[in-house]
């Protein structure tokens, strides 16, 4: 790689020019504006400008009751909507001390992992599309369609779910869902080979991803990076294993990590996580306990005064809800920790010195969802 030239305001020479990558661009996932300062084709400084999809979710929380806020978390990170939805329910349950029946926990795990698979398909294949390989993107969407159909069977929506309730989930899973998930898992296991042959072993793909956008462990700690972006740099941190919640302690799965920290490592971590999610779903389906799917909670939940922080692993990293309650039915403050917010800022540190084509690759490999950053 070239020597990094950090830009110093006093030494801007006439060779440097600015280029706007976005807000409308075929390869930024969402409305993301990257202001690049380039010297020829080498990036000298990069400044992400966000706020284009700000909808005011945190303000909305202050004039709705807890139940009315249920649709909102899924709209923040729409690719892992189910995970956020369950996370919000977990936060309120922790505040109120509600216990969730085991069957509901298992269903939450199954749907969360299905959602994680769907999100990782987009994350990895969007990265491949940013490099120019359009075919794997469409193959990934084909697999994702099956997941969306499955989740529509039980929750009614394909992308922004509102399936969890305080104390469990809204309704039980049907036999159709159960059989469909089993068939889906079998089909997916045979499809991994296709992706392996098409992209994972492709020499151009590897040459463009190796040693591009390396995030060191110290940078990751200083910037608060979590998720597959962190695991690609060699740190074995996954909220499902480090701070287990819900029914995760009862399942056997591994946390894939790679130690290089470049784009290829992050991509491989995501593909390996797909397999682990499939294992979790299989174990959950095998041992699904009978019972109710929703605990008895009052119609309008009134948490005691105090605050509480709950963290969970979304497809992008460690997300969290910090809820401050003042004893009424309306939350006082809900703060959402969006993993993409911290992951995006790392770009300013690692991008200088790379080519323009690499910026698209690095941005795709970090896998941000812009509405989650803007809330």
């Amino acid at each position, binding site marked *: 790689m070239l020597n990094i030239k950090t830009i110093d305001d006093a030494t801007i020479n006439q060779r440097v020019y600015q280029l706007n990558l976005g807000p409308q661009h075929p390869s930024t996932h969402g409305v993301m504006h990257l202001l690049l300062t380039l010297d020829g*084709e080498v990036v000298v400084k990069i400044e992400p400008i966000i706020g284009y999809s700000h909808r005011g979710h945190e303000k909305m929380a202050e004039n709705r009751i807890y139940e009315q806020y249920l649709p909102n978390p899924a709209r923040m990170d729409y690719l892992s909507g189910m995970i956020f939805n369950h996370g919000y329910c977990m936060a309120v349950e922790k505040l109120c001390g509600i216990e969730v029946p085991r069957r509901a926990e298992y269903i939450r795990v199954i749907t969360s992992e299905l959602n994680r698979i769907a999100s990782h398909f987009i994350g990895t294949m969007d990265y491949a599309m940013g490099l*120019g390989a359009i*075919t794997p993107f469409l193959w990934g969407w084909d697999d994702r369609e099956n997941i969306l159909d499955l989740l529509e069977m039980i929750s009614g929506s394909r992308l922004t779910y509102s399936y969890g309730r305080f104390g469990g989930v809204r309704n039980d899973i049907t036999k159709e869902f159960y059989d469909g998930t089993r068939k889906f898992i079998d089909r997916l296991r045979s499809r991994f080979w296709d992706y392996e042959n098409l992209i994972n072993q*492709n020499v*151009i793909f590897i040459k*463009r991803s190796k040693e591009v956008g390396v995030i060191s462990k110290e940078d990751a700690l200083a910037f608060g990076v979590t998720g597959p972006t962190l695991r690609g740099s060699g740190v074995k941190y996954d909220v499902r294993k480090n701070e287990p919640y819900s029914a995760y302690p009862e399942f056997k799965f591994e946390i894939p990590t790679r130690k290089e920290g470049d784009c290829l490592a992050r991509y491989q971590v995501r593909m390996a996580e797909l397999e682990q999610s499939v294992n979790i779903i299989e174990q959950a389906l095998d041992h699904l306990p009978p019972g109710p799917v929703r605990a008895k909670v009052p119609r309008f939940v009134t948490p005691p005064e105090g605050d509480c922080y709950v963290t969970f692993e979304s497809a992008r990293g460690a997300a969290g809800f910090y809820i401050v309650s003042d004893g009424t039915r309306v939350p006082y403050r809900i703060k959402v920790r969006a993993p993409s917010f911290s992951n995006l800022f790392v770009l300013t540190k690692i991008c200088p010195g790379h080519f*323009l084509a690499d910026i698209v690759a690095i941005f795709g490999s970090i896998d941000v969802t812009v509405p989650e950053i803007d809330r």
Partner: protein
Amino acid sequence: MNITQLPYIKDIYGFLGSDVMSGLVGLLIIAALVPLNVAALVLVERKVAGHIQLRPGPMEVGPHGILQTLIDAVKLLGKEMVTPGLTDKPLYWLSPIIVVAPAFVGFIPLPFSPLVQIKDVNVGFLLIFSFSSIGVISILMGGWASNNKYSLIGAVRSVAQNVAYEIPLLLSVMPIVMMTNTFKLGEIAQAQSGLWFIFYQPIAAIIFFIATTAETNRAPFDLVEGESELVSGFHTEYTGMRFSLFFLAEYTNMVIAAALFTTFFLGGWYGPVLPGAVWFFAKTYFLLFVVMWMRWTYPRIRFDQLMNFAWKVLIPIALVNLFITAIVLKVL
């Protein structure tokens, strides 16, 4: 054999002179072939892309979407030709016109069959290669005149890429010229009546294939118009008919490149039962299918890796191949 040596044409139109007549008939052939080829290719590309991506491609218009290109052409003709305000108007207008020139000229020396060849120019493929360099200038003009940083980056990349890959292109054809002692494409095709040259020169064939894929800006070398990074490269600011001219030029260049490969390495018009022209087009379209297949399978190469590949890998291999051919020809 030139087309005007066919007896009936000379009798009927003898009073005009054979050169003018052959020129006119040649013009007609080009005017017929180019749009037909492009129309077929656009549809073939979309269908091939669709099937590789596990979907059927255009299916609405006509049975299995056959008439899709017709509708696309009508749509493009009807679009407004927007000229951005701060562009350099003369260059902006000239660029699409000049980019089509090598496309048309390239059809002249191609030997479709022993009877059908517009003019067996004595410098043969050098005519095609020199006109494709004019195409590079027009791309640069288009990118500069658009007054758009993305277009400029795309245009500059394309100049470097085209200049770099012309050298392996020529170096890989030199062994063929040494073997057949002629530049004329018709005679090169005739010389393959025994064994096709691809068996004599496999390395040269591979280098030629890669170099022409790079020259026509097709994937995996399409970072000139890399959609993920540069929106659309040098033709970002072109709309309507001007955009379709760029499109036409690109697809026609592809056809010429495939036809050249067929002439040099795959035996031109030779084939068992069917007439020569049918075999020629069959081989050409098979090659085009391979090019499209590559486009939808491979990601894009980064620019510095592209230049490294041209200068540090392809040119040395082509030179070595040339030396070996020269030595073998001298010894045998």
